[in-house]
């Protein structure tokens, strides 16, 4: 097939269009079913995918970020604290959940991203540990080890988002927004990110101000994580330190790697499958991470492209 439609798809990105389509279709699920199980898994997936996008954006430039839980916490607590002051407008809260972690990412990125990639990994890891401490040590602001409970439901264009169905639909909306942001960023700067990922020394010697693109990615990644934090807090109606445990960073990393780091569909597939699989563990959810470990090893050693990448390779080989 030739002509304008094919050209347009190539420019916007087939995978990106597919990802956006998936989240548009997702709206149909809360409308067509009331199953508690479906609601629970879908909500977890919607939160997880957004957090995984946050990791994926940085991984496009070969940088592994462990800061996702910390930025999620900033986003989530911003919403919770705003709720204390009776700010419930969903648009305002969404903006706040995105902007607050992004603001923190600006100085942090400027500091760390001019150094070797290893520093980024180490500092983001420590950041999530520190965030937990900050949450516990500031009870006046964050409620300390009790967190902030009883967050008022958000209001979207006058309607209160109180019922489970409304909350889930809103989560679909946040996920769609995050997908659009992620897709636009990675698509528009595809050349730059790809050059940095493949050979950043060469890219810099050709004149690319590499650290600026890394910083841009980091700021957007932080904002997207903030949206995930909003979604999580919205789901639980509580902001609690345990929701933002630093170890969850590993989960999102696992979803990206196992799903496939080369395509935006990777985080979607990875988080959906692994979150669903974790639910199958039932009460033994803590063993899920062992499974993630094994899967990561398999992917790194034998199937680098992850699920999406491997499927893509197999499809290309078809005669």
């Amino acid at each position: 097939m030739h002509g304008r439609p094919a050209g347009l798809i190539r420019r916007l990105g087939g995978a990106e269009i597919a990802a956006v389509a998936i989240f548009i279709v997702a709206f149909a699920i809360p409308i067509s079913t009331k199953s508690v199980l479906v609601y629970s898994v879908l909500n977890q997936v919607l939160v997880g995918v957004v957090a995984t996008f946050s990791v994926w954006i940085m991984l496009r430039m070969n940088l592994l970020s462990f800061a996702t839980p910390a930025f999620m916490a900033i986003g989530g607590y911003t919403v919770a604290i705003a709720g204390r002051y009776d700010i419930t407008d969903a648009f305002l809260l969404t903006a706040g959940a995105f902007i607050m972690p992004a603001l923190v990412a600006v100085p942090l990125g400027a500091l760390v991203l001019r150094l070797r990639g290893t520093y980024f990994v180490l500092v983001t890891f420590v950041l999530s540990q520190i965030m937990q401490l900050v949450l516990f040590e500031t009870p006046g602001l964050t409620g300390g080890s009790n967190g902030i409970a009883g967050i008022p439901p958000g209001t979207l264009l006058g309607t209160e988002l109180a019922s489970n169905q409304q909350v889930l639909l809103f989560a679909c909306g946040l996920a769609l927004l995050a997908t659009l942001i992620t897709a636009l960023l990675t698509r528009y700067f595809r050349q730059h990110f790809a050059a940095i990922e493949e050979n950043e020394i060469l890219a810099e010697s050709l004149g690319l101000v590499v650290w600026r693109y890394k910083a841009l990615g980091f700021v957007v990644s932080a904002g997207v994580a903030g949206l995930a934090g909003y979604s999580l807090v919205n789901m639980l109606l509580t902001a609690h330190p345990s929701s933002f445990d630093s170890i969850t960073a590993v989960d999102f990393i696992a979803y990206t790697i196992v799903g496939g780091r080369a395509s935006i569909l990777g985080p979607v597939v990875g988080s959906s499958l692994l979150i669903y699989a974790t639910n199958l563990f039932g009460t033994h959810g803590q063993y899920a991470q062992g499974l993630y470990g094994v899967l990561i090893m398999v992917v790194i050693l034998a199937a680098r492209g992850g699920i999406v990448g491997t499927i893509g390779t197999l499809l290309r080989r078809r005669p």
Partner: protein
Amino acid sequence: MPEFLEAAIIGVGLGAQYALLALGFTLIFGILGVVNFAHGGFYMLGGYVAYSCVSGLGLPYPLAVLVAVLATAALGWVFELLMIERLIDDHLATLMLTLALYLIISTGVLTVFGPISMEFTFPVGGAFRAGPIYVPRENLIVLAVCLAAIAALYLVLFRTDLGRALRALADDRAVGMALGLRPRLLFPAAFALATGLAGLTGALVTPILSLAPGVGDPVLATSFLTVILGGLGSLGGAALAAFIVGIVEAYTSVYFGGSAGALVLFVMVLLLLVFRPTGLLGRDVRGA
């Protein structure tokens, strides 16, 4: 006044423990270019192996510690040889592999021992008193053993052929290989040396602090802070930074309580990265 001196002794003790961990981490990073995310896992494993030997097999504690060291070193050797070696030049891949190993170790420990803290106590009780100063004997013994281990490590690295070879490879692998050094033998050795040290620290410290799944995470974070402070890849820097971190932690916890120490250290490291990114004794850090 007595708290001041006690804090100093505790701080030096912590410093010695952190030094063993940071030195091992730096060995792996400097020689293999690998960020060992499983470092905290080996620490934890050292504790659990020693615990199993003592309570399961009835071995005397010193022997249990030795077994723990050998076990963690052996696991490190095998892991490096079978997995890391294949992807040694891909830093992100090796990092992911060590992360995966950590997840497997963590879950394994959880499965075998359960989530609750183990009853693992140091066999020597009582305290050392000198006037108003009071320091538990266990801290002093651990300090002594750690200092001995650091000294032994120094001797190996700077006074033996193996050590010289390892340091040469760390400095410039291409040149090292051109000189006939064999990474296939030396890399697993370096990895095993580092993981053995982590296991040693775990076997010594977990009876004093606590032994439960998850004790590895703060250990990893402290190791990261320490090596950034000391300068990525610098052994001297890692040792120096470890003592600074230990002393800062001891004093902040005595005088301020809570987790102020970790926060202080993190802010310190961030400020350091602004003014002196190479750390105390590090080298070129420029990225792109």
